[in-house]
């Protein structure tokens, strides 16, 4: 990455770190926490779909598995929160392995259908396995995380846990994308036959992508569990998987910044449309359609095009004597 991009990233991080100091609304901070949590799940989908080209509509299922796993360990076993979250992340990744393995022979629509099936099964399990999940009544009494004697009790404090997790996840995704394993994933996306003739084992790489997508969603789910402290199976439906997919596509599916932007934008948009009451979903839907039509490469594509144009226009005045800047200097 160029020095300019590093600088931009550092500034962005500082701004993000300051958010809870400036924003005091619990409501807004809660939405910000959710946005960050969704961004992690969308990043995971970005590795699977954006990098490896494997379409999964089960991301909400892994989100739910992570949420319930972490909730269960803390509520029923009395485990501390942070280790539970770590275990829930690993557990979701392993379930991802369980989904990825049998789905390896599938691609395109068939893969999408299989993952939809997995999502529906997962939700049915969450509803009906009442001894573990408490069924439709939901799981309650989930504790907030604490670090030593310090408990993350407010949304503002929780924000930092979400931000740190998101930064870590974005870092991992960025490292993968810009190195050998990420190139192998993209090669599989671009042309699986050529990838295997190049010595890449598509099976192995696709499985790792499924595991990573599952783990990302699991971490996001466990973060959600200890933020809202109440779990109900209807939050982990097929609809939620579609929302994650839309966030990724609107953001720009191969891009890390795009995945995060898409998640943040589409988390805040419904909140901003709240004054429209029930008709908000219509406007929301229209906005999403418009974004997909007018930004085929997503927000990331739009931004890079805008930045590219900026660079070009910044260079032009030097060559063009008619520019006012030049005239002023003369």
């Amino acid at each position, binding site marked *: 990455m160029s020095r300019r991009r590093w600088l931009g990233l550092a500034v962005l991080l500082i701004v993000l770190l300051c958010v809870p100091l400036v924003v005091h609304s619990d409501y807004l901070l809660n939405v910000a926490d959710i946005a960050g949590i969704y961004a992690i799940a969308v990043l995971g989908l970005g590795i699977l779909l954006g990098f490896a080209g494997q379409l999964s509509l089960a991301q909400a299922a892994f989100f739910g598995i992570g949420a319930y796993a972490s909730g269960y360990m803390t509520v029923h076993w009395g485990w501390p929160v942070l280790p539970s979250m770590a275990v829930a992340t690993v557990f979701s990744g392993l379930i991802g392995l369980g989904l990825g393995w049998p789905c390896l022979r599938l691609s395109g629509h068939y893969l999408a259908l299989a993952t939809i099936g997995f999502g529906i099964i997962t939700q049915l399990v969450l509803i009906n396995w009442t001894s573990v999940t408490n069924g439709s009544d939901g799981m309650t009494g989930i504790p907030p995380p604490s670090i030593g004697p310090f408990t993350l009790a407010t949304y503002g404090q929780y924000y930092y846990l979400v931000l740190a997790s998101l930064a870590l996840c974005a870092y991992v995704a960025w*490292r993968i994308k810009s190195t050998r394993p990420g190139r192998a994933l993209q090669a599989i996306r671009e042309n699986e036959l050529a990838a295997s003739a190049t010595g890449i084992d598509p099976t192995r790489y696709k499985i790792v992508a499924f595991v990573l997508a599952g783990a990302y969603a699991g971490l996001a789910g466990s973060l959600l569990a200890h933020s809202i402290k109440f779990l109900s199976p209807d939050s982990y439906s097929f609809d939620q998987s579609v929302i994650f997919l839309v966030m990724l596509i609107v953001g720009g599916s191969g891009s890390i910044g795009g995945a995060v932007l898409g998640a943040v934008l589409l988390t805040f948009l419904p909140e901003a449309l709240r004054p429209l009451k029930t008709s908000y979903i219509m406007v929301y839907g229209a906005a999403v359609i418009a974004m997909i039509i007018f930004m085929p490469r997503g927000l990331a594509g739009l931004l890079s095009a805008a930045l590219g144009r900026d660079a070009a226009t910044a260079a032009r005045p030097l060559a063009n004597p008619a520019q006012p800047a030049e005239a002023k200097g003369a």
Partner: protein
Amino acid sequence: MNAADAQAARESGFLQIRGLLKRFGGITAVNALDMTVRDGDVHGLIGPNGSGKTTTLNIISGLYRVDGGSITFDGTELVGRPAHAIARLGVARTFQNIRLFAQLGALENVMIGRHVRTRVGFLGAMLPFGAPAREERATREYAYDLLTFVGLERMAGKVARSLPYGDQRRLEIARALASEPRLLLLDEPAAGMNPTETDALVTLLRRIRDRGTTLLLIEHDMNLVMTVCDRITVLNFGQHIAEGTAAEIARNPDVITAYLGGAIDAA
């Protein structure tokens, strides 16, 4: 190994195909094919359309399963191994209908070609310094050198899809060379090239052979085949009908029959 042994090994075949059989439904695409490619040769595989040339190449590189026969490469059986394992053994290829990683950069395409010669995995990738970063730099430099070797260094940053057709063919060759193959399979490398590009290709193929890579190529451009190939195998209806040097092939009556359809009297 003394010189006589080395010569014997060379004669017995670097790539040896015996009794190869491949059916698609009721059609026998490759029928009991025997063929030998010697180490260090440029070996041509020619024949009329539908004679099983591409099928043979696809079998060697592990993209098709066979219905019988054996292929040994430097003593190792290839039949039954997956494509990626065959690539790892040192067999690389290009495709008749170019198969680049279209949305990735030219340089990245070649870097991906380096996959089997590099090691960094998902864990190593997390380190932005140290050995993984060194490997990444070395891969980039190696890929850039290969782009220069095929004359595409100015295209390094371009998206593969945006390159002109002839350049895409050369990029595919560079990607294949990145794995440092001992055997390179080329499926119609001159297809769609103009005469100037074809001349440049002839030079490139010779330089590749001089690096120590054995070449097996399918080509319809007879001029190219006769110019660069040390030996030629002719297929018809999935069967081997002739094998020899360009001069031998040119006057083989079976070959003339296969190409011109029907017997002709020697003038």
